[in-house]
């Protein structure tokens, strides 16, 4: 689909455009909407956001590239970002992340073959007292260990299997 003239997003787009004296300021919230629609910030998304904010598409592209939360390629259904920054690393986050990648049988930043999970490490997420922790599709999961993650991963895999039947 598209985000332009899409009833699903119309209200939100108008709301963001109305928040600022300059349309250009809406570029970040609108990029999130594009990412939601396409699963990543696609070329179509960039063109649409540029049109909505009265910006040059190359400017929109450079904004999307500057920030790490806009993804330029599709991710798995669950995008797992483990914090391995100092405070979390002191409580075993590096080891947790290492084991998680091994369990999913992927490399840093990779996606599992079934398209369900992408995993990578990130910098501090402001939850340092609850390490190991990660962010899954922008929601926090805290006080983790590998056993908890394995159970959660298998649950999601079972859900997928049920859906495909």
């Amino acid at each position, binding site marked *: 689909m598209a985000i332009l003239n899409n009833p699903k997003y119309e209200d939100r787009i108008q709301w963001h455009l109305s928040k600022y004296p300059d349309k250009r300021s809406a570029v970040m919230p609108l990029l999130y909407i594009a990412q939601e629609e396409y699963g990543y910030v696609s070329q179509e998304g960039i063109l649409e956001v540029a049109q909505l904010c009265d910006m040059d598409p190359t400017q929109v592209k450079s904004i999307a590239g500057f920030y790490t939360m806009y993804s330029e390629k599709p991710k798995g259904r669950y995008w797992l970002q483990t914090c391995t920054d*100092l405070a979390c*690393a002191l409580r075993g986050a590096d080891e947790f992340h290492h084991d998680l990648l091994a369990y999913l049988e992927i490399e840093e930043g990779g996606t599992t073959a079934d398209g369900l999970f992408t995993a990578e490490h990130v910098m501090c997420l402001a939850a*340092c007292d609850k390490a190991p922790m990660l962010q899954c599709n922008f929601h926090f999961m805290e006080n983790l260990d590998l056993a908890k993650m394995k159970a959660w991963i298998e649950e999601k895999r079972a859900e997928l299997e049920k859906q495909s039947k």
Partner: protein
Amino acid sequence: MEKHILLRGNDVPNIHQYDVYVQHEGYAGLKKALGMTPEQVIDEVKASGLRGRGGAGFPAGVKWSFIPKNEPVKYVTVNADESETGTFKDRLIMETNPHQLIEGALICAYAIQAKAVYIYLRGEFWDIAHQLDQCIEDARRHGFVGQNIGGSSFSCEVYTHLGAGAYICGEESALLNSLEGKLGQPRVRPPFPAQKGGGLYGEPTVVNNVETLTNVPWIMVHGAAEYKKFGTEQSAGTKLYCVSGHVQKPGVYELPFSTTFRELLYDICGGPSVEGRSFKALLPSGGSGPVVPLNDQVLDTRMSYEDTAKVGTIIGSASLIVMDDSVDMTWVASKVTKFFKHESCGKCTPCREGTYWLDKVIDRIMAGEGRPEDVKLIENVAKNMAGITLCALGEFAANPIIHTIRQFPEDFNRHVAAKTETRPAAGKKTAPAAGD
């Protein structure tokens, strides 16, 4: 603390809800402010001694007084970017006591006669922004946001804005650029945000941290004199201390600035997390402040701006990362250096190149391939970054290595001399190097 000023969610269940909040002094500070002149509000905040909680500790009332009175358009931006390792206090305020932040921001807006407040949250605070939006709507329904606030002639809008993963957007001028839809890179100053040409859309703007503004309603209701009863002479009030790392009870604690490190780390946090281990080192202000050994002198220091300066460090945003004696301080320095290399926005050469070189040298040392002249090289690179970068990140970036060499030379020299493979913290395996 018996009664909290900021973490009032600990005293009053569900204070994040509008109805509960108004039953407990909620929006009383704003109402009181509306009955005063803007100058009187600024004077009260000045008299309270409230200092900025985002790191630099600049007096809030003085900052507000810099805003020119005769400019027609002015803004308040709330810094909720909270991205420094070890910092997780603003998030807790917004989760548990969001109306008090909104009220504090509105009092600031009244004091400088701003037409709008923008709360800039780091992108990961997606759920929090959603809750804040609901709180803003609740406040609007009761006449505290929008036209003619509290029946007065003062009108002001409040909006949230989500960042998208860039530590540098916590730096105030980068934050303003990001909010304007530009690349989140710092601006050349002057003009400063408070001046015409320097703020949001070029208009005079106050940028304050979440915690700073959350103090303001309490100060309005109880008065500056009451507020000054907490803390020390130059550090009035209470502070949210974030404790992480090797303690038994990590978390956020609200305490007067007069509290010592020992009281917090032993009495409240329960001492070292692993039996048989002892405390070795402390980063009192996340990755960017100078590291100190956790000896008796430091432990008996009060956690105020003036006292921490006496032991060679800063309290900054009070993000205490505690390390026990299993930790190799060179590993810590390398972890933090990688963070700054990753987060350098690349706009100025000394920072972009400097962080690259520091990281390269420390990697070499960690791999057991350090050279005796590396210490000199590091000092040289650091010297060439100091004081000439566009923002303070360039200065922060040299801190971890420089202070590790100074405070823990044995950890450093061991790597260089013995050419040993390093032992990571707490016997843990390390994952692929962070930050690349």
